[in-house]
């Protein structure tokens, strides 16, 4: 920090004043536009998922199984669109509308693996597959175990 400088800076602003100045000069995110786009893209991906589920249920599949298969298909589409270099464009437009659906999870799995492929199939692809997905699984699975344990204790008492 500037306060530790042995020779004082010549500019006529203190670091504290600068923090305010910098905030004032930094453009704000276009929240309304981003939100509308996120709603549209996120809604669209979920609607596609629902159509798939409906079709499978009409074909005689059980609902939970149809939901699982639809999720797997969406994950496949997410990885494929990432490989084709399309998903990052969708996400640039749709923001959280593209991150939050399971297709975004798929994108976060493929993109680092793809990028680090040049570092080899084990240290590159294999380890980087979980660069972003790793924390999701760690916290998701841990939470579910915790929930299960608490539920178990509640059932006993």
């Amino acid at each position: 920090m500037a306060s530790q400088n042995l020779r004082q800076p010549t500019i006529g602003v203190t670091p504290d004043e600068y923090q305010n100045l910098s905030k004032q000069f930094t453009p704000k995110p276009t929240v309304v536009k981003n939100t509308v786009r996120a709603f549209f893209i996120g809604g669209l991906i979920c609607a596609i998922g629902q159509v798939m589920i409906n079709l499978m249920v009409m074909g005689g599949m059980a609902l939970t199984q149809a939901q699982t298969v639809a999720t797997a298909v969406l994950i496949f589409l997410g990885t494929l669109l990432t490989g084709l270099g399309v998903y990052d464009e969708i996400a640039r437009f749709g923001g959280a509308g593209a991150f939050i659906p399971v297709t975004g999870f798929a994108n976060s799995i493929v993109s680092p693996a793809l990028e680090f492929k040049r570092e080899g199939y084990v240290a590159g692809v294999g380890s980087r597959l979980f660069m972003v997905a790793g924390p999701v699984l760690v916290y998701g699975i841990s939470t579910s175990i915790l929930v299960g344990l608490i539920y178990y204790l509640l059932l006993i008492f």
Partner: protein
Amino acid sequence: MFEMVIPAFIVGGLICVIGQLLMDLTKPSFTPAHMMVVFVTGGAILGAFGWYTPLVKISGAGAMVPLSGFGYSLSKGAMEAVRQTGLIGAFSGGVQATAVGIAAAVLFGYLVSVTFNPKG
């Protein structure tokens, strides 16, 4: 074929709106990875209290496709397994319920990584 599609669109869209607001209104150090963790954990906790189930009932994929749905499946799976097999179910249930999704992500992720090159 189109039943529940509009609720799915609206609920799914609204869940993503929450995510977008979280991202735009928090510090820049809150990355998409942080958001995914928040949504999965959040979905798991809401699921544990049974508060996510109504959302799944009215909107189907609208609540299941977002990552909060993944979290919901995890905790719902854990609780169901505890009912059936007891303590060990707490450990097996969540992963079992989401096994297809995780396996699909790993397999497709691997295949696509090997097949394609980054476009930049």
